[in-house]
């Protein structure tokens, strides 16, 4: 009897211990939220904060407030110097020299030097870093060879003649080089601490130094991170906020709920139904994203190798109707280059400088299909459209399926895939039609047009057009802005309006909710995302 009681006690104790071990876990903030603090809701945590590492949305949120790139461009295309105070370039645009700001300090008070910029570049050129942006360094002499382990790091075309001078020697003329500088691989990482992507320096406030207006004060994985004003920042007098808290959320509905209950002050990238819910209210801030959603034709699949068929499909889609159904955050697009990408020389939108590559015309579409050997869609094979299972893409797929059936009498099978699976399908080229979305990496049409080059690693649809390659290559070498612009337009007209390599669908808007008391939030011209560097809280506004 005694033994039995003892066993019982042990078992119950084990159960209680298991239950009590975690105790009541609270995951709240462990810091003072006084002063001027704003809380921003962002998407779930993905990737690290190391500019040379495997980064995603979390880094993008962090870097706009915490890291200063060499220079950037404002809304009007004017240069704004940040970590650099001037630059010079040689005549053929292959040697770019940047003079760093001498008063620039890291958030521990140590000076920002040219070696810190080189530190990011060299670490990103090691594939072990997992950097997805390493390919943008390939414009630098020997960078690609080093990445592929065919050359030694000492041959890299980056020089640091002194602490405040940084020289990039490029393999060939690159007119859009200044636009690349906003990419993570060109931002600095403090040489003292930033050693490898795997050491965890990037999320530790003691070692994750910043050279921008805010510094990392706390990082709690899966929950939030806190940025506090960097007292060593060279332009600290222009910074009003004391603190920005970024909270991670799994989905946009949770973000909207948290905004509604006052748990966050800013909720970004929400779904389009928020536009209706908050219509007419000051909280709603809708910004234009520099992004195009489109469909790739697989040119290796018959009859998509026939330009007439591709044109017919493009002409048979009614994009106004599509956008009306898909959501108020979409606008019809007829180009590959994003609708809201500006030409820095003139300040005009790039796509508005040229004639629309094609006009929708269902009648002509039927005629073209008949010319290609499929009168009234007869004998046209059933094609499959592969797209990710996101609400927007599922709606789009159904509208397109119906429009093509109605206008061309052809049948498209729909294949909804989980997001990663869809990326794989696209990468491997095993599709007939595949959904694609491209948000500009930098503010130049080249970010779009280069994707269709025969040797581009993003070209997964079998496009091989030497004429196109030649025009795009010439555009990168052309130093006269007007001539270059006309080459870029020529390339786009060829790819979208003549060869119809893609089906442009729509451009998107970012739907955000912002507490009306917050002022000074800006929009980053290159991507359309929000920036809080100079934000302030004015309760009376």
């Amino acid at each position, binding site marked *: 009897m005694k033994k039995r009681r003892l066993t019982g006690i042990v078992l119950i104790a084990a159960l209680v211990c298991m239950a009590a071990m975690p105790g009541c876990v609270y995951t709240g903030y462990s810091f003072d939220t006084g002063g001027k603090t704003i809380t921003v809701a962002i998407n779930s945590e993905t990737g690290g904060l190391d500019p040379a590492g495997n980064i995603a949305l979390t880094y993008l949120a962090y870097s706009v407030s915490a890291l200063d790139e060499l220079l950037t461009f404002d809304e009007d295309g004017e240069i704004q110097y940040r970590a650099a105070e001037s630059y010079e370039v040689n005549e053929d645009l292959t040697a770019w020299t940047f003079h760093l700001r001498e008063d620039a300090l890291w958030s521990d008070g140590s000076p920002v030097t040219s070696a810190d910029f080189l530190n990011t570049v060299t670490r990103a050129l090691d594939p072990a870093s997992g950097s997805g942006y390493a390919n943008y360094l390939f414009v630098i002499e020997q960078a690609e060879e080093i990445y592929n382990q065919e050359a030694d790091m000492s041959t890299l075309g980056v020089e640091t003649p002194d602490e405040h001078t940084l020289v990039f020697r490029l393999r060939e003329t690159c007119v859009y080089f200044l636009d690349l500088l906003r990419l993570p691989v060109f931002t600095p990482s403090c040489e003292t601490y930033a050693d490898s992507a795997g050491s965890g320096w990037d999320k530790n406030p003691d070692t994750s130094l910043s050279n921008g207006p805010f510094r990392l004060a706390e990082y709690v994985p899966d929950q939030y991170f806190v940025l506090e004003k960097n007292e060593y920042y060279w332009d600290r007098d222009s910074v009003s906020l004391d603190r920005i808290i970024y909270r991670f959320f*799994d989905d946009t509905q949770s973000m909207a709920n948290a905004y509604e209950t006052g748990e966050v002050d800013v909720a970004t990238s929400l779904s389009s139904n928020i536009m209706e819910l908050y219509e007419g209210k000051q909280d709603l801030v809708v910004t234009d994203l520099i992004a195009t959603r489109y469909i790739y034709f697989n040119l290796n699949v018959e009859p998509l190798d026939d330009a007439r068929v591709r044109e017919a499909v493009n002409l048979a889609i009614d994009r106004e109707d599509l956008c009306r159904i898909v959501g108020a955050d979409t606008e019809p697009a007829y180009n590959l280059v994003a609708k809201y990408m500006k030409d820095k020389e003139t300040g005009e939108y790039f796509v508005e400088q040229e004639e629309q590559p094609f006009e929708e015309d269902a009648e002509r579409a039927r005629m073209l299909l008949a010319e290609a050997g499929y009168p009234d869609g007869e004998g046209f094979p059933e094609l499959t459209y592969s797209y990710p299972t996101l609400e927007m893409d599922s709606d789009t797929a159904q509208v397109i399926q119906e429009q093509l059936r109605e206008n061309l009498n052809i049948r498209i099978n729909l294949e909804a895939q989980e997001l990663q699976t869809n990326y794989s399908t696209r990468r491997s080229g095993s599709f007939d039609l595949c959904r694609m979305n491209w948000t500009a990496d930098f503010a130049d049409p080249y970010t779009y047009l280069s994707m269709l080059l025969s040797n581009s690693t993003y070209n997964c649809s079998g496009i091989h057009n030497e004429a196109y390659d030649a025009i795009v290559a010439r555009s990168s070498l052309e130093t006269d802005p007007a001539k270059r612009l006309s080459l870029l337009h020529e390339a786009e007209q060829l790819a979208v309006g003549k060869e119809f390599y893609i089906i442009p669908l729509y451009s998107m808007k970012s739907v955000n909710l912002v507490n009306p008391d917050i002022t000074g939030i800006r929009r980053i011209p290159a991507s359309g995302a929000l920036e809080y560097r100079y934000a302030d809280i004015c309760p009376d506004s």
Partner: protein
Amino acid sequence: MARYILKRILTGIIALFVLAAVTFFLVRLIPGSPFQSAATSSSVVEAVEREYGLDRPLFEQFLSYMGKLLRGNFGISYSNPGVSVTEIIWRTWPVTASLGTAALVVSLLAGTGLGTLLAVSKSRGIQRIISGGAMLASGIPGFALAVILLLVFSVRLNWFPSSGLSSPLHYVLPVTALSLYPAAVITRLTGNALRAELQKEYVLFARAKGLGETRTLWTHAMKHACRPVLGYIGPASAFLLTGSFVVESIFTIPGIGREFVNSITGRDYTLILGLTVFMGTVVIVVNLIADLLGAWLDPEMRRAYRES
């Protein structure tokens, strides 16, 4: 008994090994890569995969992973550079477990309480309300309940916060969402079992002897009536302690269930495997303890174990 426990532990270890092996190959069958995102160029993805040894023959990778696993090393998470899988488990599991424990306690208290009331109450009204309520509650899926609770009590009435777990108040809605179904099941199990026990002769005998109603109920009848509940608690606590992705996701709670689903969408192979093996261990251990507890309470079961 000791032999029985040893046998259960050994089969548990074999089950974990099989689980790890099957998961390893199944995960690799899903298309995708931990280093792939919308904008990453395919040449970069391939170079990084090569660097991490993901291009080596799958069986070779399997042997290397199993070797590490035997030494208790779950490896490094691919999508969280520099963070080990063990660190992620110890960060997320306490959150899930505290929520699960709270839900378990709530459902046990509510379930046995209401079940007892159902069995002993003479009022038809109360009986109807309890059994009808339990029927309804066991029919509402957890995610629907979580969304309804969130909309009504957080967004509309603003009584409770909508996200996170930073105060006792934050526990109310997710714990309610998690515990409603088990509470309903326990109510019905307790109610039915207790009603059957109360019809038995020993209860009549106890009453005839003049034993008080409370003692008859709690020391005699309840001891037998709790057996089916105990059988249910094993799997239910294993479920609650391994986390509900839906509830964690709706209330933005940084628990293990949410981490698990994110690891799958991000193809974080090592993290998927680590979490699977860990959750498998929790399920096996919790079920073992629940079985032993059952044996301790039930002489018939104990005899059966001894004979097996």
